């Protein structure tokens, strides 16, 4: 048993769980918790009637994680209703992204998935109207600093996150899916054109299946902090598997990646899903995805980085080079996000203002004392 990737082995083949030792269960729970994949494992075990076979101690942690995501699922549905109510007067079509979309579209990707905030996509011309309606309904802007405001509004693909004053929930309002300053230019109008209205809701949309998958890939392979990297890779795996039943999905996928301008992240999605999670992807799609493949040298380097970084950020998962891989991907994400001169100015400002590494703000909601 590969102890470094116990959580991956468990999620890709629940059969391995039947002969885990106590120490291996201990490690599995820790890796799963750190990767935010514990509830997904719990969901799979419950769905396959395997939960009762889990030893009592780890089972309690699995059940505990499941309770937490059940609660998040309810909260997410309620929050979407609140957002729709707040934006009802504007007549703006709202596209849900990522977690919220998986939940509201009833995709299996939502099963056992953890959430932290809600992401929505609206046309850029409506951003000001959406923002003010949200403010009138209790959401407050964050990042009040002048520089941060300019950073978001001028260069980013979203306005500063907004937080509800009573519920404490956060909403990210996007107008496209990658920063405006990013090297990769997205064909945003095409995204809006194909959005699918959710039955039973007014003016509530999710991205078209191919676009949903391509957005998930673009998001993961532009991210610098990969704390949830493995979870996001499992999202992709789940989307590939679920949409494989949708007629025309595989045929449309690669042409659509080209149309939106995201063949590179799509290549990585195919590469690492098949390599690390054995995702079943038709051979011709794998072959066609290579139009997004970088040069041989870069390709080797990216393999080196992602094979290490797409793991739980846990001591038991680290190998030689894991730290280096994470640093490289972090630097790369900034490189991708904005042109070099702008990046230098941005990093200098950040360095002066904030010398504390971000990972130190452990988000502990309540101190029990």
């Amino acid at each position, binding site marked *: 048993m590969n102890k470094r990737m116990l959580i991956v082995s468990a999620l890709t083949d629940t059969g391995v769980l039947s002969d885990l030792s106590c*120490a291996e269960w201990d490690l599995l*729970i820790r890796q799963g918790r750190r990767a935010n994949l514990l509830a997904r494992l719990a969901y799979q075990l419950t769905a396959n009637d395997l939960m009762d076979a889990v030893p009592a101690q780890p089972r*309690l*942690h699995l059940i505990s994680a499941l309770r937490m995501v*059940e609660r998040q699922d309810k909260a997410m549905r309620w929050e979407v209703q609140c957002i729709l109510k707040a934006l009802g007067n504007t007549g703006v079509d709202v596209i849900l992204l990522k977690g919220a979309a998986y939940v509201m579209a009833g995709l299996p990707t939502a099963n056992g998935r953890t959430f932290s905030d809600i992401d929505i996509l609206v046309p850029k011309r409506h951003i000001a109207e959406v923002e003010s309606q949200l403010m009138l309904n209790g959401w407050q802007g964050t990042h009040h600093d002048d520089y941060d405001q300019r950073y978001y509004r001028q260069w980013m693909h979203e306005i500063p996150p907004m937080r509800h004053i009573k519920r404490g929930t956060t909403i990210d309002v996007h107008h496209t899916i990658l920063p405006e300053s990013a090297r990769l230019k997205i064909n945003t109008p095409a995204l809006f054109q194909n959005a699918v209205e959710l039955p039973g809701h007014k003016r509530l949309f999710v991205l078209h299946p191919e676009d949903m998958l391509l957005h998930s890939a673009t998001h993961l392979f532009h991210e610098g902090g990969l704390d949830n990297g493995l979870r996001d890779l499992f999202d992709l795996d789940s989307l590939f598997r679920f949409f494989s039943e949708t007629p025309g999905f595989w045929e449309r996928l690669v042409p659509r990646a080209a149309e939106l301008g995201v063949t590179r992240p799509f290549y990585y999605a195919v590469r690492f899903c098949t390599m690390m999670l054995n995702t079943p992807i038709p051979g011709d799609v794998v072959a066609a995805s290579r139009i997004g493949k970088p040069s041989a040298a870069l390709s080797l380097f990216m393999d080196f980085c992602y094979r290490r970084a797409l793991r739980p950020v*846990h001591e038991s998962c680290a190998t030689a080079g894991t730290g280096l891989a994470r640093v490289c991907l972090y630097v790369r994400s900034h490189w991708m996000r904005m042109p070099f001169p702008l990046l230098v100015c941005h990093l200098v400002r950040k360095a002066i203002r904030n010398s504390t590494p971000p990972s130190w703000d*452990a988000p502990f909601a309540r101190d029990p004392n």
Partner: protein
Amino acid sequence: MKISEYSEKQLVELLRRGHLLLRLKPFVARVQSDIASIARDIALMYGEFETVPIDSFADFHVSVVLETGIFGWMKPRARFYFDGRPSFVPLPVNQAFAMLEWGLNWCIAAHSHQYLVIHAAVVEREGRAAILPGAPGAGKSTLCAALITRGWRLLSDELALLDMATNVLYGTCRPVNLKNASIDIIKQFAPEVVMTEPVADTTKGTISLMRPPKGSVSLVESPAHPAWIVLPRYSPSAPPKFESHSRAESFMLIAEQSFNYDIHGGKGFNAVGDLVDQSLCYEFTYSKLEDAVRAFDDLCRGRVE
């Protein structure tokens, strides 16, 4: 093997290597620390607790370690880690054991949604439990400490674990947190109790932990049936007095004082409802511990209206 069967040197070594698996029923905590005073305090407080073999499943992997850095040698500080990830702010090293206790409370409260976890002290007599919810400064820990030296069994002074399927309460029977004046009050009230060295200037003032009674530790696995919800209120020179407390307010109090009430949704609502339904709810005013203990004996004998 019990903690009391290890020498302090052995404990220091086990802690240094992170090989100390402490059974805090129903949990197991795996503790790592390079701070010698923690070994001393664990020996003092957890003597009656068992350890488990190193290859067992541990619910929580925690460390309390010295902070390194330029100022480390001038003003040593310790930090709590949950499974390798730093949590909470670093504190002066003399608060290391208290930080371990607070950290363990956090671990239990944040990860045990198989229970409704209520911020309350729980004591038991003849199978029936009194829940003392935690309004800060109301003297819940002081009252709890006094009661457990006079025949009541300690379940917990911080975290009540309610099994929602069976409606019974569990506790981990860990040390009782005493603060400020209550440290000396308990020392006078029960000179035989064992406490850690008081530590001044913490966020909660001066604190000291009190060793859980041997009899309570040996019964840690026995649940207790909720019988009373008592909201303690210390009031100088007031005579001891139980007053009926509204069920609705008791409900709200328990819900507010639960760490994971919201996570359980409708089930949590029903569980708190059942808990309140099967308990007599009181507000209890007291000034002297002797009187308070006598009043609780009357409560147990059904002599309180």
